[in-house]
């Protein structure tokens, strides 16, 4: 399976994603430049983390109009998988692929630390290798991660099982929701109504090896492989 990893000016997790796909999963990956007009045959698109266009105006607001994004939006509309991580999540929200928006952290501080996530839906394209309620550790590194949407949208996301990851407190408190950024309802990751686009603030591509702290992110990639290859 072929992964296309979009590089915007200011992306900085594109190589981590490339490493995760090629070295850890043993799958094929290619970089897609933001000015490209085709996806080079990619089955799965990754919008990686970083600070595209210096976060000017709002994170993701300008990247969303890059030429490659018309192709990414068409790919998503066809029901094909898009994994939007961190800045990618912000871009996907700005592009209308996912509802809501990521605002400045409540603390006004950049947070860079491992966090604990609870799997809230283990029957999605991106989470089927996890168990419902499983608690994972992945790093976050962002200044604008406070997921925000109106009450009606939040209720719909919860009702339809579109909330896939929530932040939880440390060991032993896995039922206590807590958020490093003030996200509404402790939301860390969601999927689109069709289920083929996932946006999340934590970095699964940086949690691929226990030697580096956690391999809990591997399941996200394996889940996609299991469903798309099937």
């Amino acid at each position, binding site marked *: 399976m072929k992964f296309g990893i979009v590089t915007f000016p200011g992306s900085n997790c594109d190589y981590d994603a490339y490493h995760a796909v090629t070295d850890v999963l043993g799958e094929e990956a290619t970089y897609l430049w933001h000015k490209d007009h085709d996806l080079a045959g990619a089955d799965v698109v990754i919008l990686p983390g970083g600070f595209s266009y210096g976060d000017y105006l709002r994170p993701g607001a300008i990247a969303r109009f890059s030429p490659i994004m018309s192709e990414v939006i068409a790919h998503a509309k066809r029901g094909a998988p898009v994994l939007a991580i961190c800045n990618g999540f912000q871009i996907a929200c700005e592009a209308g692929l996912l509802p809501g928006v990521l605002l*400045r952290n409540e603390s*006004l501080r950049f947070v860079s630390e491992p966090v604990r996530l609870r799997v809230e839906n283990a029957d999605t394209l991106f989470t089927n290798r996890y168990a419902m309620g499983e608690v994972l550790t992945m790093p976050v590194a962002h200044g604008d991660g406070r997921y925000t949407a*109106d009450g009606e949208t939040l209720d719909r996301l919860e009702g339809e099982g579109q909330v896939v990851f929530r932040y939880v407190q440390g060991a032993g408190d896995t039922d206590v929701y807590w958020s490093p950024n003030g996200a509404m309802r402790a939301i860390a990751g969601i999927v689109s109504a069709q289920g083929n686009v996932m946006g999340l603030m934590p970095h699964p591509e940086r949690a691929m090896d226990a030697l580096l702290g956690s391999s809990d992110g591997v399941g996200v990639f394996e889940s996609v492989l299991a469903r798309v290859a099937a």
Partner: protein
Amino acid sequence: MSRFKVALHIVPRRGLLDPQGKAVADALHTLGFKAVEDVHVGKHIIVEITARSASDAEKDARAMCERLLANPVTEDFEIAAVSAT
């Protein structure tokens, strides 16, 4: 066609948590401006544009706000001034 300068204000929607505004309000309180009740921090954008008329320039600016300059989920915008340059 003439040139116009359009001044835009973009502010976080009332009722949404605005930690930046709160931090600035706290700082103002620390400086002794105890009467400050609330602060909202937004953006002031000036667009210089060629248009047939001031109302055309304003219409264009409104479309720019709706499509890019403001996020419809969390921000409100207003066109503060349109002036010929």
